């Protein structure tokens, strides 16, 4: 372990970490937006569920390097779009399944109570159903984010940097174990931080659940 290298290259490590975080955040935000819209669509037209889940399931089964490779001839290497199209498509299966499961888990009586109180369908969705579904949705976000942080390491192979650059380009290609270790530990730390972050976020967004466990 070459601690001196780490100290001398804090700038590079920071920059690669930032690239990694950016690629992840963009994928999760866009993936969540698409999944959310698809979930609302499926609620209106339930026959869409089979085809949409089927297509996202097939995309999910394709190895990341292959999915990037499909896009490289069209969008090129060193283009974040190449990575994001693939990364977003991976998030959809996880996020969509959890959003649907979360909404399906809202008890019938709760929905009827909201209707009885005169909520419009959109009020009911935003003020009743989504808050109740939140734990399941956040569980999906946690799995998707940890998965994407792992997958983003592979984007280094199509010239997009990130912590994979430390693992492969500096670490493996120059046979410099310190860089590989820094990249690997960095990716694990990011995953743990993101996971804990979502747990905290869930706590903040569902104060009633906290009160219940405290009391």
């Amino acid at each position: 372990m070459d601690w001196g290298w780490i100290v001398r290259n804090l700038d590079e490590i920071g920059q690669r970490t930032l690239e990694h975080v950016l690629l992840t955040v963009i994928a999760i935000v866009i993936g969540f937006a698409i999944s959310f819209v698809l979930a609302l669509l499926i609620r209106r037209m339930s026959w869409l569920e089979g085809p949409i889940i089927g297509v996202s399931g097939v995309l999910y089964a394709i190895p990341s390097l292959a999915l990037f490779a499909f896009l490289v001839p069209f969008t090129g290497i060193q283009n974040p779009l190449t990575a994001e199209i693939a990364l977003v498509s991976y998030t959809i299966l996880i996020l969509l399944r959890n959003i649907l499961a979360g909404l399906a888990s809202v008890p019938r009586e709760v929905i009827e109570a909201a209707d009885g109180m005169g909520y419009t369908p959109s009020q009911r969705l935003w003020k009743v159903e989504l808050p109740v579904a939140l734990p399941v949705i956040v569980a999906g976000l946690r799995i998707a984010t940890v998965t994407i942080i792992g997958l983003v390491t592979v984007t280094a192979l199509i010239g997009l940097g990130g912590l994979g650059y430390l693992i492969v380009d500096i670490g493996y290609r120059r046979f410099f174990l310190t860089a590989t270790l820094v990249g690997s530990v960095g990716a694990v730390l990011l995953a743990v931080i993101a996971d804990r972050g979502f747990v905290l976020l869930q706590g903040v967004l569902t104060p009633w659940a906290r009160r219940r466990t405290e009391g």
Partner: protein
Amino acid sequence: MEFFGEVVAWFGDPANLFGPDGLQGRLGEHLILSAIPLVIAMAIALPLGAWIGHSGRFANLVINIANVGRAIPSLAILALATMLLQAFIVSIGLRQFASEIATMIALTALAIPPILTNTYVGISEVDDDLVESGRGMGMQESQILREVELPVALPVILVGVRTAAVQVVATATLGAVFATGGLGRFIIDGIAQRRYDEVFAGALVVALLSIMTELAFEFVQRRMTSPGLRGGRIALREPAQAGRVNGV
């Protein structure tokens, strides 16, 4: 459209199909690179998971290790295995296959957690009444495990094996980054040399192989599920499925 013509032409060129550097050779390498780790992982994780599930010992430890393992990117595991083990593998006289052996060790490590957790969960969730009736009938512990717990847990165990198999086939593609053979070569070499018809063709074969692996194991899983469990629509949890990391 012109590009797809190039891809079709790539598949039409016998030089790309046959011989050790063609599809034929690379597919063979890929299957060996995947099959050996999967078999070794099953040999380790099935008995260990069964024992943990039956006895209930070390359960938390195993689950925690599997969860931590999931946060380590596959690419990092491959890189670390290659860099840490290559010198040792060369020193015991296996220089020719050093990259392959290191990659297969990494793939084995990746395949163990899903098989282990599913075997453990499957066995430990077998209805206590079934186990008790086995004991009441005078069965020995090993008989209970073999004749009661294993058949009932088999669907859950097979989901774990399927998850591991798909993951290994997918991740074996990344071996090409670390100088192994296999189908990843087309993608990695193609990107390096900007031969995008080859990149796309390689991706196509890798994707097909992954999807076929998934379907094949799904078929086996259905065939091997006891008819008594098949009809009843017993809810089978897929614990390892949720966090499955796809090839990386």
